[in-house]
Structure formats: structure tokens, C-alpha cells
């Protein structure tokens, strides 16, 4: 990017897997955050532990950055030990400095961080603080090497970007958070008590984070034998009255279908987090996609209520994660939070507004009996709690009586009416940009970030509409926001324009202009702006 009109700066850190590229990107992001910058960090990595190239892109600015940019003003490569800016490049002897200090090879990234700190005129003390917090007892060697990188660049007497001027008070480094962690914090805030997951990229870091923090948060995390067990345990926990969730990606979610349907029939709350990656099948495991919207819409056989929420950034992941857990319990229903790799694993400067979350740590179950008297669950005296996969009567006993079957199906679908009513008072659809513009861009999930960033580079103003609730879709709000549009442009990370199909199905509005990306990489704001400009009138 170099200098855009919005003064967004992008730095690219690269290197072999195992060289600490990702960590360097995150620490640099935290340093910028502490120095008063708004930051967005994306890591692109292959699906392996060591070897193969990794990139971390860090875009930052004084104002909110919604997405990283593709063309950096500075590149630093840990393997080649090079720093490139513009046409110029010079050698940074990271390996030599590390060897001189008798430090492990991974600490090359600290040399690089020191150099970046100097180049952008950031305070070394801040970097030191982050090292101390991140590495604890191992911080000293990293600080020492960062200092060497800092001094090395200083001694070269190259022109630097100078001290980043910031009027803003430094944001806490903890304000830099990825979608998965923000979502997990939202779940905890809404009273999560158990979390079950089988490892699957890009959802795994939710399990890692919650497992690491389980004592602090007072919850139990379990890694069972497969996704089928994970989702069954999640349902079992809810039946026992304990707020639960599980997380996976598309392939793991395929295995959970029968249990989604079981939640529909038994009316036991079930929350599943699905972080999309590029399919079909194993696909491109460590890259992003938005191709599972239609999958989750129809998860499980039979007709039952499904609620689907799709946050677009960590702040929304936090709030909607909490909302999802509350909705699952309120409606005793299947709720799915749809994420994707780009949201799950990219870090953005965020403010997690916990004042918006009501923490309802309730005990309940899928029991129909005495439901009017309140919530019941196994272990309570003088009450028998029965749930079933078979169609059942009000007491939870199996039935084949057509009258009862019809009544029960209607009873379950009555919940949809309450939900639609509740929807009216919720922020189910967000609107950005020029709200009077007749050019309307519609998008969902993490693509929102690149779209909002592209707004800064459009020839003409445009309005952006982002549905957060995909099921049930808030057709009233969608219709009113699309009213009077001259051009509607659908931007999605898939080949079949799944959101536009959903909108057409539910509102009759056909969106003809589509910008679709299905190469497993996120949209780049400048490229996207070019494509959007082409459509604007």
C-alpha cells in the first residue's frame, strides 16, 4: 500500500514454517496497538508444522483497519534475512546475531521485531513489555536479540519512517484479538460451562484457548474420539442443565448432522461453532472460504428450527457468540455460529463490549413436562426429565399418533414466531457507508472487512449491508435496506453466491451483480475496490 490517502501502512513478514513468522506478526501487531495504531493481522500458512512458506501481513493506521492489504511498503524475510522497502533491500544478519547470543534459531524473529520497532520509530520499552508478557521467563533472550536488531538498523543510518505520530492513547495490546478467541470469550461471558471439540482447522484454536483457560473460566473442556462424540457430549451436557458448545469445520460438521436433527426433535439446546475452510472434502485446510452457508442452513434431516449467526469481525464474534448461547437456551434449539478461517485466525484491534452481554447461567433441559413451571433438569427432586429422538408426547413418551405428531411439530415451530418477533428489536443486519447511496454492496462474514476497507477506495459512495442473522433471515430489514437500490452488488467467498440465493429465496430480490472469490484466499481491498468500481453507477 505504501501511503494511501488514508495512510494505511502494510508490513509483510515471511519465512519458513517453524521460524516464528506468525508470532512475529502478532507481536508486531500488539506493539502497534500499544503505540496507538488500529491494526489488522492476517497469517497465511500451509497445512504443515515445519517447512513451507508462511506470511504474516500487518496493516495499520490511525483509523480503523477492517482488512489487511496485499502490497506492503516493507517486507522482512526471516529465512533470507532480508529487509525490502520499495526497490531497496538490505541484509539483516539475524542468524549471526542469534548465534552470537547462543540463542535458539526461533529467536531470529525477535531480531526482526527489533528492526521493525526502530524502523517505525516505536518505543523499545513497549516491545520489551510485550516480550515479558508473552515469553515470561524466556523474555530476556528475546529482548536482548530485539535490541540487537534495533541497534543494527540504527547503525545503518538508513532513512526510517520515523516515530509514528499518534494522538490516540495507546490501545491495550490485548485489544488485538482474533475471531476464535473473541468468540470463546463471548461464550464464556454468556455462561459456557462445557466445551467439546475434536481438532479441526480453523476451529481448533477455540479448543486450545478454552482448554488453557479452563480453570480461570471455571469450565470443562474435552477432546473426545471424533466429532460425533463431541456433539453428542455437547447435547448430553445441555440435557444435564449445563451450558455447552462444540466447534468444528465443514468436514467435522458433516459428521454432526444426525445430532443437529436430534436437537431439533428433543429440543435440547445445541450450539455448534462452524469455522469454514475451503472445500469440498479436505479441500484447502488452512485457507478461507464462505461455502458452507447452505450446508448449515439445512443441517440435519427433517424440519426443525435452525438459527444461524454469522459475525464478520472479532467484536461481532464476541457478541454473537454470547447471543448464540443465549438463543440456544431460550429457544431450546440448534444454533450455529458461522465463522471462516479469515475471521477465526486474523487479529484485529477490537473493543469487546461486555456491557452488551447478559450472562444468563441457567440450568435447563429439553424437557417438555411442566415447562410452564420453569426449567427442569435431571437431579431435581420430584421431577422426571425425559428427552427423545422419537416423536413424543408432552411427557416425552414415544408416539405414532398422527394428532400428537401434528401438534408437536406445530408446537416446535411456534418458537419461530417468537423468534421472528424478538428479531425485530435486534441488530440482525448492519449497514455501513453512505446510507443514502443507491449503490448497495451486500456481504456476510469476514468479507465485510475487505468490503469496508474497499469503501475507502471507491470512485463513488456506496452503502454496505451485512446480515448478521442468516437464519432466520430478517427479511423485513433486508428489504427495507435494499429498497430503491440502483445497483446491488453481492460480494462473497464462494462460487455459487450462497447469500444471494438465500436473499432471493426469502425476499424475491434477485441480485445480478456478483463478485465471487473461490481461490481460498481472502479479498484484497484494492482489488475488490477495482471490481466494485466497475459496477458502480
Amino acid at each position, binding site marked *: 500500500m505504501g501511503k494511501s490517502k488514508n495512510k494505511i501502512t502494510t508490513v509483510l513478514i515471511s519465512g519458513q514454517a517453524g521460524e516464528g513468522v506468525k508470532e512475529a506478526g502478532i507481536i508486531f501487531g500488539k506493539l502497534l496497538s500499544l503505540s496507538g495504531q488500529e491494526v489488522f493481522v492476517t497469517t497465511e500458512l500451509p497445512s504443515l508444522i515445519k517447512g513451507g512458506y508462511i506470511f504474516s501481513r500487518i496493516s495499520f493506521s490511525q483509523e480503523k483497519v477492517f482488512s489487511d492489504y496485499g502490497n506492503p511498503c516493507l517486507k522482512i524475510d526471516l529465512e533470507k534475512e532480508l529487509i525490502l522497502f520499495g526497490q531497496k533491500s538490505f541484509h539483516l544478519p539475524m542468524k549471526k546475531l542469534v548465534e552470537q547470543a547462543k540463542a535458539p534459531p526461533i529467536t531470529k524473529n525477535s531480531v526482526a521485531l527489533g528492526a521493525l520497532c526502530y524502523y517505525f520509530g516505536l518505543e523499545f520499552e513497549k516491545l520489551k513489555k510485550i516480550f515479558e508478557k508473552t515469553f515470561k521467563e524466556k523474555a530476556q533472550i528475546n529482548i536482548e536479540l530485539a535490541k540487537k536488531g534495533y541497534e543494527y538498523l540504527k547503525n545503518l543510518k538508513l532513512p526510517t519512517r520515523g516515530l509514528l505520530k499518534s494522538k490516540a492513547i495507546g490501545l491495550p495490546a490485548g485489544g488485538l484479538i482474533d475471531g476464535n478467541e473473541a468468540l470463546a470469550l463471548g461464550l464464556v461471558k454468556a455462561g459456557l460451562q462445557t466445551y467439546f471439540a475434536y481438532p479441526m482447522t480453523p476451529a481448533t484454536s477455540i479448543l486450545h484457548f478454552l482448554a488453557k483457560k479452563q480453570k480461570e473460566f471455571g469450565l*470443562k473442556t474435552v477432546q*473426545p474420539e471424533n466429532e460425533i*462424540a463431541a456433539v453428542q457430549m455437547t447435547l448430553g451436557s445441555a440435557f444435564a442443565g449445563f451450558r*455447552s458448545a462444540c466447534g468444528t469445520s465443514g468436514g467435522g460438521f458433516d459428521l454432526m448432522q*444426525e*445430532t443437529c436433527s*436430534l436437537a431439533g426433535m428433543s429440543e435440547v439446546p445445541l450450539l455448534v461453532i462452524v469455522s469454514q475452510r475451503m472445500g469440498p472434502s479436505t479441500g484447502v485446510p488452512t485457507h478461507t472460504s464462505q461455502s458452507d452457508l447452505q450446508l448449515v442452513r439445512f443441517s440435519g434431516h427433517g424440519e426443525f428450527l435452525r438459527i444461524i449467526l454469522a459475525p464478520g469481525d472479532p467484536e461481532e464474534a464476541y457478541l454473537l457468540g454470547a447471543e448464540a448461547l443465549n438463543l440456544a437456551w431460550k429457544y431450546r434449539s440448534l444454533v450455529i455460529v458461522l465463522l471462516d478461517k479469515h475471521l477465526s485466525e486474523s487479529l484485529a484491534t477490537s473493543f469487546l463490549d461486555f456491557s452488551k452481554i447478559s450472562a444468563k447461567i441457567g440450568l435447563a433441559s429439553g424437557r417438555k413436562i411442566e415447562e410452564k413451571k420453569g426449567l427442569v433438569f*435431571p437431579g431435581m427432586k420430584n421431577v422426571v426429565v425425559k428427552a427423545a429422538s422419537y416423536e413424543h408426547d408432552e411427557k416425552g*413418551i*414415544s408416539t405414532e399418533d398422527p394428532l400428537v405428531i401434528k401438534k408437536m411439530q406445530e408446537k416446535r415451530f411456534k418458537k419461530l414466531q417468537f423468534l421472528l418477533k424478538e428479531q425485530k428489536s435486534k441488530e440482525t443486519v448492519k449497514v455501513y457507508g453512505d446510507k443514502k447511496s443507491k449503490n448497495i454492496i451486500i456481504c456476510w462474514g469476514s468479507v465485510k472487512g475487505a468490503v469496508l476497507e474497499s469503501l475507502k477506495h471507491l470512485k463513488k459512495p456506496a452503502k454496505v449491508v451485512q446480515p448478521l442473522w442468516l437464519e432466520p433471515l430478517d427479511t423485513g430489514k433486508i428489504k427495507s435496506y435494499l429498497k430503491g437500490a440502483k445497483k446491488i452488488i453481492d460480494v462473497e467467498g464462494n462460487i455459487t453466491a450462497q447469500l444471494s440465493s438465500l436473499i432471493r429465496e426469502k425476499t424475491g430480490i434477485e441480485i445480478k451483480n456478483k463478485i465471487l472469490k473461490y481461490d481460498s484466499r481472502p479479498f484484497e481491498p484494492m482489488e475488490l475496490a477495482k471490481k466494485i468500481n466497475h459496477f458502480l453507477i
Partner: protein
Amino acid sequence: MNLLTQAKITWCPGCSNFGILAAFKGAIEDLVKNKEIKMEEVVIGSGIGCHGKISDYLDLNSFYGLHGRIVPLLSGVKIANPNLKVIAFSGDGDAYAEGIEHLIHAAKRNIDLTLIVHNNQTFALTTGQFTPTSPKGFKGKSTPFGSAEEPFDPLLLMLSSGATFIARSYALEVKKTQEIIKEAIKHQGFSFIDILQPCLSLNDTRDYYQKRIYWLDEFRQKDNFDFALEKIREWNNKIPLGIFYQIKKQIYDPS
């Protein structure tokens, strides 16, 4: 103590599942009377198959679950609330075909729950196909010329998977079955009972079993792995019943 719901029992007349129902009811009644468990803390569950109907018939907390999935479902119940007494019912198709991975892992992690398998060596509810415990040559509707597969021994599988309580019973020996169920519920850890259960309509094995079954000495030490292995592998002219193996081991606790 009335442990039955109003649900109409739809097992075939004379079905040996009645024996298991009577034994289980008796076991719960005894344990509640002796204040060893509290009725409200009992949670049962079942899979899909003839055995599964037991959830409807018993007036206890229950989850009538999916085919093959009752073990992980009830594991979730137990993990969430360890105070509950959790007992799963399953069939040989349910536990040994559709849900076998869960069975192995529940035994491996020694989660504190009881699994009772109604083993009739056939899929009865779907009108007769071979299961993992059907003998080779079993003529069912899907194998009209005889099944080509050897059966496996679920007790042997449980022994190698780390189950800490392994028993086999016979559905028509109600009193003995009741005592074994009581011991299994009292056991701390994963307790497994395979109940030989003749299906009078589709696989009537009563004569076969009655000629062969005998009871292991119930007062012997039960923690001998080699003895358990030897007795489990004894399935020829004689079929031993009783508790084969029981040891104390750390129970599963994720926290």
C-alpha cells in the same frame, strides 16, 4: 415404588427384554431402598433398536437417543454433572456396529457410567439382519446365504480397551442379572454388561444357551486379568456368566 410409565410395552409377548427390564427395575429399587443411590439422580438412556424402548417404559430421567450414540450422549451428562448416576442401554447392533468407536473410548477413558447391552445377535427391530455378534453363516434377510463374517467377542474388546468392570449375563436369569446390574452401578468407572438375550421371534437361542451357560464363582478375586482373559475366551461347549473382571482405577475427570 412404581418405576414404570404409562407407556404401552410393545416388545413381542414373552420377549427376553422383559427379563432385563425386571432385573434393572429390581436393581434400582434395591439401591434406592438401601440409600445407595437417589432416584432423581439416576439418568438412563438408550439407542435405537428393541432395547431402546426401555427409556419409554421406565419412569426415570431418560434420553431416548440415536442409534449407536448413547454412550457419548450420556458421557456428556456425566461430565457436566458428576453427581448423576448414568446408565446406558444399548443393543449389539447399536453398541458393536454403529457406535463401536464410542464404546472403546468410553472404556479407555474409564468414564463413570454403566453400559448394559441387550445382545440378541441380530437386528430385530429391522426384522433380522446379522450384527457383529451373529455367528458366521447367520442367515438373515441381508445375508440369505449366510453371513461371511466371523463375530467378535465384545468382552475381549472391552478387556483390551481398559474397561474396569466386565460382566456377562443371561436375560432369562433375572435375579442374577439384577445382582450384576447392582454391582455395575455401584462400580466406580466404566462398567460393562453384555446380556445374552434370545430374540424369540427372529433368533431364538434359548436352547443353545441353556445347554451351555454356567456361573463363575462370584466370591473369587475379580482383578485377575489373565483369568478374565481365559474365561472370556471360553465360548464353546460352555459359556461362563458373571463378573469376569473388576479393578479400581482413576475415573475420568476432564477438569
